[in-house]
C-alpha cells in the first residue's frame, strides 16, 4: 500500500500537512450471524488528512459503509458485533473510548450525511430545530443553511422536511451535519479541542455515505460542488462513501478502494483512475458504465437493428395524464404527461431519460396498461402479447415466499402451460437469462441483486412478450452486475427480437442500451433522436446540462 501521507501532499500540497484528522489502525469488524461469524472488515488501516476529500469506493458488501459507521463510533447495532483495532478521530478513540467520550466527539467533531434525504431528516421536527439540534444558535443555523445553498434560509427554519424537494432536503442534512455543537463551553473529557473543529463551528470530519445516490444528476453535481466548497473554505475533511468511481473522480483528492472487507488500494484520484495497481480496481473501472466510453459492440448493434425497423412494436399517441396537485387547492392539477407520442420499433430499443418528476415512469406505466391515460392511445402490434414490466427493485417485485421457480411457474400457469410442463419451461427461461437450475429452488432473498433482476426478467419472459418495459432496471445494482444485466437485455433483443422501452435517469445506461433516446422534461419529450447523435450533438440546452452533469472517469 502506498504511503497515504505522501500521496496527499503530492495531490494537494496547499492543504494541511499536520496531524491527520482521523487515523484508522488495523480495524477488524466481525458480525455474529445465524450462519456463523462474518468478517466485515479485515485489518483496515487508513489516515484522513486535514482538509482532504477521501472517497471510499467499493461494491455492496465491500465493507465501506461498515467502515464509515465505525468512524462515527456507531458500528451496526442490529447484529452482535465485535470490533478490533482502533479509530482515532481528533484524539478520541471511537472504538475503545467511553460512550460519553464518543458522544462528545460526535457532537463536536464529526458530521454525518446519509444516502436518502427523504428519510434522513425527522419528518416531525422543523428544519431549524434539526439544523440547530446540537446546540447552535438560530443565527448559526441560518448561516449553515445559507452556506449549503438553501434559498431563503430564514424562512426554511420554520418549515417541515416534507415541504422541501429531495435536493433541498439533502442540503438541509448537510447543513445539520456541519453545525456541530460548540466546542469551548462544553468541552468533552477526551476531545482535543484544537482538532475538534475545522473552524466556524464546522466539524473537522464530515462522513457522507452515498450522499448523492438518490438525487438527480444536476442536483448531484451541485451537492458535489458544495462538498468542495466545505473543504476549500472551511478546511473540512470529508469521507465520501460511494459505489460510483465517477462521483469519486469529480471531487476526491484520494480514493480508497475496498473489496470484501479489505482495503485493496489507496492512492491519489489521478493514480487510481489512470494507473490502477490492484486487479479489483481495474475490474471496477472496466465494469463501470460510463457515458464517455461504450463497448465496441454497441456501435455495431445500432447498425444491425436499424435494418429491422419496418414495423412498430409499440406506438404511444398523444398520451396525456393529469393528477390533482399534491397539497394544492381543489381543482388544481399537475400535468404528469403532456401530449406525448412515441414509437418503439419491433426489436428496437428506446430509452426515456429525464429527472425525477418528469413523467417518464408515468408514461411507462401507461404503456404497460397499469395506469389509464386521460387522453391518447396505446397501440401494441398484433400478436405482441401484453408488454411485460421489469422494475428497479427486483427484491420487492418478487414474491418473498415463492421460490424463483414457483414465481415463474405461476406466470406460466396463467398462460395455460400445464402443471407438468411448467417446471421444465421455468428452468428453460432461467437458463435463458443465465441462471442455473439451483436458482429455481432458491428464494429471492438468497440471491444477489443481479441474480434477482435476472429472475425478474425470466418471469417477464414467461408470457413470450414482444415488448419489455424496464423501469430503472439496473439502478440498484453494482456496476459489474449492471453491465451484465444490460448485456442480457441486449442479447434477448438480438435472439428473440424483443423490443425494449427503458426508463432511466442514468444517461450512460441509455447510451449503452438504446438505439434511440428521448429526453423528457415537464411531461413532454423535448428531444429525441438516435442515441449516438443525441449524445454527440445534443440540440437542447437541457440535454447538454444532463450530459455535462453525468459523472465520468474519462
Amino acid at each position, binding site marked *: 500500500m502506498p504511503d497515504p501521507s505522501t500521496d496527499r501532499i503530492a495531490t494537494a500540497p496547499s492543504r494541511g500537512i499536520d496531524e491527520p484528522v482521523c487515523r484508522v489502525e488495523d480495524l477488524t469488524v466481525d458480525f455474529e450471524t445465524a450462519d456463523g461469524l462474518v468478517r466485515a472488515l479485515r485489518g483496515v488501516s487508513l489516515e484522513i488528512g486535514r482538509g482532504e476529500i477521501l472517497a471510499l469506493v467499493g461494491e455492496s458488501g465491500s465493507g465501506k459503509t461498515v467502515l464509515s459507521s465505525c468512524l*462515527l463510533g*456507531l458500528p451496526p447495532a*442490529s447484529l452482535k458485533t465485535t470490533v478490533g483495532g482502533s479509530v482515532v478521530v481528533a484524539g478520541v478513540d471511537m472504538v475503545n473510548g467511553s460512550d460519553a467520550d464518543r*458522544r*462528545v*466527539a*460526535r*457532537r*463536536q467533531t*464529526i*458530521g*454525518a450525511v*446519509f*444516502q*436518502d434525504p427523504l*428519510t*434522513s*431528516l*425527522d*419528518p*416531525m*421536527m422543523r428544519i431549524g430545530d434539526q439544523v440547530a*439540534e*446540537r446546540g447552535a444558535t438560530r443565527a448559526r443555523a441560518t448561516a449553515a443553511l445559507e452556506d449549503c445553498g438553501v434559498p431563503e434560509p430564514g424562512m426554511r427554519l420554520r418549515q*417541515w422536511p*416534507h415541504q422541501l424537494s429531495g435536493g433541498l432536503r439533502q442540503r438541509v*442534512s448537510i447543513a*445539520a*451535519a456541519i453545525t456541530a*455543537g460548540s466546542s469551548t463551553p462544553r468541552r468533552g473529557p477526551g476531545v482535543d479541542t484544537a482538532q475538534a473543529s475545522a473552524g466556524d463551528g464546522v466539524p473537522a470530519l464530515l*462522513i457522507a455515505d452515498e450522499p448523492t445516490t438518490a438525487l438527480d444528476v444536476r442536483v448531484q453535481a451541485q451537492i458535489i460542488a458544495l462538498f468542495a466548497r466545505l473543504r476549500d473554505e472551511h478546511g473540512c475533511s470529508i469521507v465520501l462513501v460511494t459505489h460510483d468511481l465517477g462521483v469519486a473522480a469529480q471531487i476526491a483528492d484520494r480514493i480508497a478502494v475496498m473489496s470484501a472487507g479489505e482495503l485493496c488500494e489507496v492512492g491519489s484520484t489521478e493514480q487510481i483512475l489512470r494507473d490502477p495497481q490492484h486487479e479489483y480496481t481495474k475490474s471496477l473501472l472496466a465494469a463501470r458504465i460510463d457515458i464517455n466510453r461504450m463497448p465496441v459492440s454497441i456501435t455495431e448493434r445500432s447498425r444491425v437493428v436499424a435494418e429491422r425497423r419496418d414495423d412498430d412494436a409499440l406506438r404511444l399517441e398523444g398520451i396525456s395524464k393529469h393528477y390533482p396537485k399534491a*397539497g394544492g387547492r381543489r381543482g388544481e392539477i399537475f400535468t404528469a404527461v403532456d401530449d406525448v407520442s412515441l414509437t418503439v420499433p419491433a426489436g428496437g430499443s428506446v430509452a426515456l431519460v429525464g429527472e425525477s418528476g418528469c413523467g417518464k415512469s408515468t408514461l411507462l406505466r401507461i404503456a404497460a396498461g397499469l395506469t389509464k391515460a386521460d387522453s391518447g392511445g396505446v397501440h401494441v402490434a398484433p400478436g405482441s402479447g401484453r408488454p411485460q414490466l421489469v422494475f428497479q427493485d427486483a427484491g420487492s417485485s418478487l414474491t418473498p415466499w415463492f421460490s424463483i421457480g414457483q414465481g415463474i411457474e405461476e406466470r406460466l400457469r396463467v398462460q395455460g402451460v400445464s402443471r407438468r410442463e411448467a417446471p421444465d419451461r421455468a428452468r428453460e427461461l432461467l437458463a435463458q437469462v443465465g441462471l442455473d437450475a439451483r436458482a429455481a429452488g432458491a428464494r429471492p432473498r438468497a440471491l444477489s441483486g443481479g441474480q434477482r433482476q435476472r429472475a425478474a426478467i425470466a418471469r417477464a419472459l414467461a408470457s413470450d412478450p414482444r415488448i419489455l418495459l424496464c423501469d430503472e432496471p439496473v439502478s440498484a445494482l453494482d456496476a459489474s452486475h449492471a453491465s451484465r444485466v444490460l448485456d442480457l437485455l441486449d442479447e434477448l433483443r438480438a435472439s428473440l427480437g424483443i423490443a425494449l422501452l427503458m426508463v432511466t435517469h442514468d444517461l450512460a445506461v441509455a447510451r449503452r442500451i438504446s438505439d434511440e433516446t428521448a429526453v423528457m422534461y415537464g411531461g413532454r419529450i423535448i428531444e429525441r433522436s438516435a442515441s449516438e447523435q443525441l449524445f454527440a450533438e445534443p440540440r437542447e440546452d437541457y440535454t447538454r446540462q444532463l450530459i455535462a452533469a453525468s459523472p465520468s472517469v474519462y
Partner: protein
Amino acid sequence: MVRAVAVRLASLVGVLLLLAIAVFLIQRLLPADPVRAVLGRNASPDEIAARRSELGFDDPLPVQLVRFLGDLLSGDLGTSLRTRSPVSADIAAYLPATLELVFVATVIALLGGLIVGVLSARGGWLSGVIRVVTAAGASAPSFLLAILGILLLYRQLGLFPAGGRSSDLLATSTPTGFLLVDRLLAGDPAGWLDALHHVLLPAFVLAVGSTVAIARVLRGSLRSVDSLDFVRSARAKGFTALQVTTRHTLRNSLNPALSMTGLQVGMLLSGAVVVETVFSWPGIGAYLSASIGFSDLPAIVGVVLVLGVAYVVINFVVDMLQLVVDPRLRSA
C-alpha cells in the same frame, strides 16, 4: 390545516348520522314488539292496534326515521319501560360515573402503554419479562382480573375498597356528576382522594387489555422507526439513546399507538358493563344490563347511541391529536 380539520369534522357528522340510522333499523328489525312490552301480556288486539298508530308505528319507515332523527336532535330518547322516566334523564344520571371510570382507565392504558411499549422496545431481559407478563395479563378475561383483584387487594391486603364510587354510600355528585371533578370543586381533598381510591382498581382492571394492546402497537412502531435513517442521523449527532428516543423515535411512533387508543376506548366502554357489575359501580353498564333483562328497547337504544357517539367523538379527538403530532397529515 383548516381543510384537514373540516374534512374530519364532516366525516364525524356523517358517521353519527349513519350510526343513528343503523340503530333505528336494528330497533325496527328486532323481533321484540315494544308495544306489547309496554301494554303487557294481557292487552287486547284492539288496544295494541290503537297504541301502535298512536306511537306512529304504522307510518311508512322513512317517516318514522325522520321523526326518530328529529327526536334525537331535540334530545328526546323516549321513555324507559322499566324506570318509567325519560331515557335521557336516566342516562344523564348514570353516564358520568361510566365516563369517569373509562376516562381513568384510558389514562392508565395510555400511560401504561407508553411505558411498557418503550421498555419492551429496548430489548434485553427486561423486555422479555415484560412481554410474558403483559401477554398473561391480556389473555385473562376482565371479570377474572376483577375477582382476583378484589380477593387479593381488598380481602387479603386491604389496599383497595371492593366496590362503589365512594366510602359514603349515599354520596351524590353535583353539579357535574363526575365525582373527581365535583369534590375538587367543593374543595374536599380527602373526599377526592377517597374517590380516586375507589376508581383505581376497577379502572386498572378495565385498562389491562388496552394497555397491552397499545404497548404492543407502540413497541412495533418504535422498533420500525428505530431502523430509519433519521434515527441514525440523531445518533450520529452524539445524543444518548434516551435523548434519541424522546426527541425523535417516540413522536414518530406515536400515531399508530394513538389510533389503537381510539379503538380501545370502544373496548373500554363495552368492557365497563362487566367491570361495573363486579365492582357495583353505579354506571351506565349496570343500567344497560338491567334494561336488557327487561327488553327495555328505548333504554337500550339510548345507551347504544350515547356510547356510539362517545366512541365517534373520541376517535375524532384522536384524529385531531394525530394532526398535532404529524405535520404531514395537515396538508392532506
